[in-house]
């Protein structure tokens, strides 16, 4: 992409970028206070209940689903591996005590709060924009509210999450209008992932909004 094509596209300041007309795409940095990785194994059947007691949230058992309660979200990211994301530091506090408690139950807890950055991509073309870099199917029929999945964005690993209550889905077109995805990438890929996101959205025109909570 020649540089004069992306003049200003890629900047992080709030404002309108790309094509003058807008189809309503918004990009906003996602803020969260902490992110912990809970792991368990088949030999440690009590980790799930220990985690529920520690965090007040059930870890989702179904692959690529999430559970959410207030400031805390649990995302299934692998067999017996979950990512807890808190928008409020108090929801994930006192790491060492909780690590030791989970260790006692046979599991493990890792603090990865600063390891990822993310953005919320919303608007009717949100799925189209993500699908320029990611081979996942983001249609509401395939990627329901409350789902998460890991794949690539460009050549970078990325974790995708669609906010909302898990439901059987619907074909309601108004739902598609309000599609909202969050994409997390490793911090070192922040620049290139943001650039690809902006370059992909520029043809539709997009607005960068102020950061918002996960």
């Amino acid at each position: 992409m020649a540089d004069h094509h992306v003049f200003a596209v890629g900047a992080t300041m709030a404002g309108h970028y790309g094509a003058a007309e807008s189809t309503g795409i918004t990009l906003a940095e996602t803020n969260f206070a902490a992110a912990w990785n809970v792991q368990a194994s088949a030999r440690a059947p009590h980790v799930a209940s220990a985690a529920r007691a520690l965090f007040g949230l059930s870890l989702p058992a179904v692959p690529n689903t999430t559970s959410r309660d207030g400031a805390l979200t649990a995302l299934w990211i692998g067999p017996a591996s979950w990512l807890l994301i808190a928008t409020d530091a108090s929801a994930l506090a006192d790491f060492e005590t909780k690590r030791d408690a989970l260790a006692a139950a046979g599991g493990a807890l890792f603090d990865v709060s600063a390891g990822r950055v993310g953005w919320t991509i919303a608007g009717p073309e949100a799925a189209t924009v993500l699908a320029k870099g990611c081979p996942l199917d983001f249609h509401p029929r395939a990627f329901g509210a409350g789902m998460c999945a890991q794949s690539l964005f460009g050549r970078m690993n990325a974790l995708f999450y669609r906010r909302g209550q898990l439901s059987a889905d619907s074909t309601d077109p108004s739902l598609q209008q309000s599609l909202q995805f969050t994409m997390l990438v490793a911090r070192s890929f922040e620049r290139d992932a943001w650039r690809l996101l902006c370059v992909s959205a520029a043809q539709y025109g997009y607005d960068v909004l102020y950061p918002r909570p996960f």
Partner: protein
Amino acid sequence: MQRCRLPAGGVVERSQPLPFEFDGAGYEGYAGDTLASALLANGVHLVARSFKYHRPRGILCAGADEPNALVQLGRGARSEPNVRATTQELYAGLWASSQNRWPSLSFDIGAINDAMSRLIPAGFYYKTFMWPPTPKWWLRYEHFIRRAAGMGVTASLPDPDSYEHQYAHCDVLVIGAGPAGLAAARAAAQAGARVILCDENPTLGGSLYGGAATIDGGSASAWLEATTRELVDADVTLLSRTTAFGCYDGNLVGLIERVAEHARVTTATRSSDSAAQLAPVSSWMPRERLWKVRARSVVLATGAHERGIAYANNDLPGTMLAGALRTYIQRYAVRPGTRAVVFANNDQAYATAFALQGAGIEVAAIVDPRCGAALDGVLPLAARERLIPILARSVVTGAHGKLHVTAVDVSPLAGGVVSRIECDLVALSGGWNPAVHLFSQARGRLRYDEALASFVPDHCPVPMTVAGAANGSTDLAKALGEGHTAGLAAARAAGFAPTASLRAPDAAPVASGAPLALWSTPPAVRGAKRFVDWQNDVTVVDVALAAREGYSSVEHLKRYTTLGMGTDQGKISNVVGLALLAGELDRPIASVGTTTFRPPYTPVTLGAFPGHDAGPHVEPSRFSSLHDWHVAHGARFVNAGLWKRPHSYPRTGESPDDAALREARNVRTNVGIVDVSTLGKIELQGRDVAEFLNRVYINRWDTLQVGRCRYGVMLRDDGIVLDDGTTSRLAPSHYLLTTTTVNAARVLQYIESLLQTEWPELDVYTSAVTEQWSAAALAGPRAREVLAQIVDIDVSNAAFPFLAVATCYVRTATGPVPARVFRMSYSGELAYEIHVPADKGRAMWNAASAAGAGAGIMAYGTEAMSTLRIEKGHIVVGAEADGRTTADDLGLGGLVSRAKPCIGSRLSERPALRSSDRWQLVGLITVGNQPMPRAAKIVADPDRAAPNPMLGHVTSWCRSPNLDAWIALALVENGRARHGETLWAVSPLANVRVRVQVGLPCFIDPKGERLRG
């Protein structure tokens, strides 16, 4: 003035005239034209010279199958060769030139090849120019042959346009938006399926335009409009100007969408050389978009390609395929001649005769090899009613003319009297080949249909159905019905229940006579060329020659004669060629078969494949959270895997190498700070971590206390060193393991694989935390005084000795930041690593830099880091541990714990890995301060005649600012026994030889007093 434009009709926008240029002459066309239709509207038929014989060529087709009308489009960076004029949409300011001719299109010196054609038969370059075998004359011939045969010229400037990728998923992908495709998309969408409908043309409708067909009781155009509306309402993704070019495993289909090519505007002011710089209409749009569609089910409605008949001089401009001619008249309102002969073996071509009449072109005759009942179809009957002369049981045997056809010879099929008919237009049709390319790419089987005289789809192993002309069903009513059924079936296959009430679009079937298989006609003049493949100048004689010489397989025929190669891949010629081969071999056509169809269906712009991953973004880059600081302080960067790491921080007027020397010296005298965030970091938790580490490292880990770290070495199964790094015990069952920057992913993968497959019983959890932590190393005699200022723990030697680890807070301008501090050293100096959460990296770095200002702190890069570690004799995986070295070779044998086995320990006992002539790590200093040559080999006597036995090689070398000498680490045979010897480091490549003194692989502080002090 478009002198050959009809006064009315067609889809062109007469209100939008578009100026363009071809071969230096200015013309005008209309919006909606292709370059080919605009040229024809201006009376330009001669557009190219042929590949081998440089014969004059005109426009033969009206679509992607065109073999002749290839042009060079645009100038400068956007210049593109071999663009098919028949698919290139016209835009204002389009600039094109003909190819493969000199000095001009109408007078081409290369046409001498035509006269000399007896000397250059098929495969001539395989025979003639192989002789004499030495010297290799072919290398000289090739140069001239390639120039003589060349097509267009590629642009040598970087492509200024952008391209993007688009992944998509659907239940039903319908390829081709003609009547069959539209009916299929409509049926599938009404059933609730997610449908994508694509078509290579700018508009939907395929063969529906211009025709007089009736669908559902109304006009075809009314049906097209209503159906398009239905599809939009049903949320079908409609992609025009989009070619499905490849079908891959699991119904993954590649599409190329031409987003902006048709709508270029002049961005530059009309200065002399910039007028050609035409940019896409919106700078935010990519020029092309590469779609990767994953479809549960595919409906192919790709239509059919008309084929030719080989008669003498069938390549003269003015000769066009009958369907294409009808397209130019009805779609583009062009009048390409005044008197036409139609030569066809099928009913469909009769519609062209009617179109010709409608355009005021006289139809001199329809020459048809058929007779009797075969001519009783609806269209031949209508031709008789219109009093068009039909010459039944007759064929065209040759054409006359120099740069344009002026007459054709007609004779009875059985031979006999030849009569000449004057004409300036020949409408040619040898029947229709279903476009089975994608079907065949998907491993679909083809079947030869005698009645249709063509190969049709038979069976496909993947969910893919074929409808309409692509299935051999050229009748509109049948195509609509097949499309409808295919759409319903595809939706059902994807789990949808179609509405019972949806009826197939209704049209009246047209009775037609069967075509008669006819591939060539006998030449009226001996030696006249009868072309099978226009693009590659392959004639009937060439096919016969190949058969005579034993090339009886179609694949061999293709390679030997070049039949079916090139940009058109034989879309109109392949079947004719293999039918002629079958005739030569006296075998049935079905047993000869077709060549393999491979992607792409039509040429795809290379730039579309990388998409956005081009130029500096060919790979993603990884940046430390301290990157902006490095940039602001003048860092030069170097790639380490995907990471960008500071090489050094040159000051004004300073070279990067000098900067590195300054930085390295400062570490030994004051204190330096280096960004080590990129080191691989893996956390391990669980009851069995110590046991696991015992198994993967050569040294012992169950003795490591909380708050301590240790250097470890991992072996491969075969006893060779895999990686090294440190592991710290943060809590009783919580460890942090570091790896080299570029090995991080590999080591994590290795650890996870061991835990999942070898030792699932171990209670060990892993998490990659490289991205979680920003890390800086403080190194130098004054490191402690800097660290003490910013942390809240006692870092005295007694409280925080060498290899201690602690968690603490770092005081920063934005408040205290939780940190892990490690006392470890890579440089050999008193040194610490400080790890803080990556979002606090900059705050920590600033705090350390500020605290060190009084101590002479300087940032240093990877080059100084490398110099320091060479001085200290620390190994690097990749340089010293090069996949051939054991721990003992590297002087790390002392780390091996005898108390327990580990991966690789058993095989490291092999005699060959313990023999005394192993290459061992040593240090070298050049004698007389001579520069160390690059990548030097070690020999005892540089003057010895070859082969000179090699005693080893240099693995790392540098100018040491602290020793003021050239030093190196090297692997040398039995090196530890050679300390004190003088050997030679030689570089035969640079023709350099230097005397070197062998010694300990440690030049600074061998006792380690600095790092423990």
